[in-house]
Each structure stands twice: as structure tokens, then as C-alpha cells.
């Protein structure tokens, strides 16, 4: 079961987890990304490429399902305006065995960072800046290519 959602509404982790648990798995791994208030950031705006984003997330989930034995994958990304403390992304995996759930979860969040068309703009009081892509995100995504 693959569930992908891109929505401007807050991410409801308890609901996402309950849906994953219903798959009867022995292990569930999750990653939740939260907007940080570092460096005076007052708000974060997420832009995306409607249509392509959903396809990109589904393709990632399918890749994970081909690589690990998974019962369910959930990927939820919030878009629009958020404030520090808001959840921006949730990735959850369900599997019979913990290592598969954990590895697939790590793979999905690493690859989401480089393979899905989202762009972040930070608001710092009256000023705004587009967030630069980070080399370490590319490195993190690349490590999965070696079959690590």
C-alpha cells in the first residue's frame, strides 16, 4: 500500500501511523521533519511542481517497495506557509522486519530531498530568501546507489 499526499493542511502523524499499523506489520519506522526556527526564521514557504511531485514520490515509494519487503509506505509533504514547530514532512514504512522498515524509511527521506520538486523559501521578519540546496543532501541520496 502506497500513500502519497501533498497538502497545505497540517500533517496528522497519529492518523498516518494508525493507517500504517492497520497493515499488520511487525515494525513501523517513521521520520518526521519539523520546521526549525534557527537563524531568526519566522516562517517557511514550500512551493512544489503539482503533478510531477506526486509522480516523483510515488516513484520513490515504488523503488523502496522493489528493494525492501514492505507492507506499506506513506509519504506526506506539507506545502504552503508554515511556522517553526510545524511538521513539514512525514515518511512512514511498515514491514515484517525492523531493518527493512528502518532502511526503507532512511532511503525515502534521503531521496525525497533530491528527487522531488519542492522549494523552500525562508521568511526572516520582512526579508525572504530561497534556501540553497546542500551538497550533503546529494551525498546522502547518493549513498543508497551503492546498495548500502
Amino acid at each position, binding site marked *: 500500500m502506497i500513500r502519497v499526499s501533498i497538502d497545505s493542511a497540517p500533517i496528522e502523524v497519529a492518523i498516518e501511523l494508525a493507517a500504517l499499523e492497520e497493515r499488520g506489520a511487525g515494525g513501523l519506522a517513521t521520520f518526521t521533519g519539523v520546521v526549525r526556527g534557527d537563524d531568526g526564521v519566522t516562517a517557511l514557504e514550500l*512551493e512544489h511542481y503539482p*503533478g510531477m511531485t506526486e509522480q516523483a514520490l510515488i516513484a520513490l515509494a515504488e523503488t523502496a517497495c522493489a528493494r525492501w519487503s514492505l507492507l506499506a509506505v506513506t509519504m506526506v509533504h506539507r506545502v504552503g506557509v508554515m511556522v517553526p514547530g510545524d511538521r513539514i*514532512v512525514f515518511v512512514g514504512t511498515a514491514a515484517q522486519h525492523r531493518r527493512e522498515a528502518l532502511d526503507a524509511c532512511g532511503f525515502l527521506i534521503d531521496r*525525497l530531498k533530491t*528527487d*522531488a*520538486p519542492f522549494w*523552500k523559501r525562508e521568511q526572516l521578519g520582512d526579508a525572504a530568501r*530561497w534556501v540553497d540546496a546542500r551538497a550533503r543532501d546529494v551525498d546522502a541520496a547518493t549513498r543508497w546507489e551503492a546498495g548500502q
Partner: protein
Amino acid sequence: MDLLYFAWVRERIGMGQEQVEPPAEVRSVADLIGWLATRSPGHAEAMRAPERLRAAIDQKFVPLDAPLGAAREVALFPPVTGG
């Protein structure tokens, strides 16, 4: 051909999408970027540093030297920063 712009590419150009009919010699994404740079000062500013741009053809990421082929939708944007 439908063009889509995101993030600061969109902001510099001043619009999120437009329809264009590039001439026949515009064969690759890189050619398209060069041609777009001549359309307005905003386009020129957005296309000024092609190495900072990324592209998708028909909603798939492609390198800048990818041929446009029969592309119906081409998107130009900075490197992605989701998650």
C-alpha cells in the same frame, strides 16, 4: 511548448508559466535557456547562470543537455530543497 518556472526562476521572470514556440535551432534544454534569456530583462536575469538551473521535460528531471524532442511541458527551476 508550455514552460513552467518555479522558485526564484519564477520570481525573476515574473510569471509561473508561459507558452512559447522556439525556433528550430533550439534543440536542447540548454539551447532553450539561451534563447529564453533574450526574451526580457527578467528572463535574462533568471537564465544568467545556467549551472544554477535544473530542468524537467514532461515532469521528469533531465540534464541541461537533454534534447527537447517532442516536449510538451518544460520546467526550469533551481535545485530542489524539499523534505
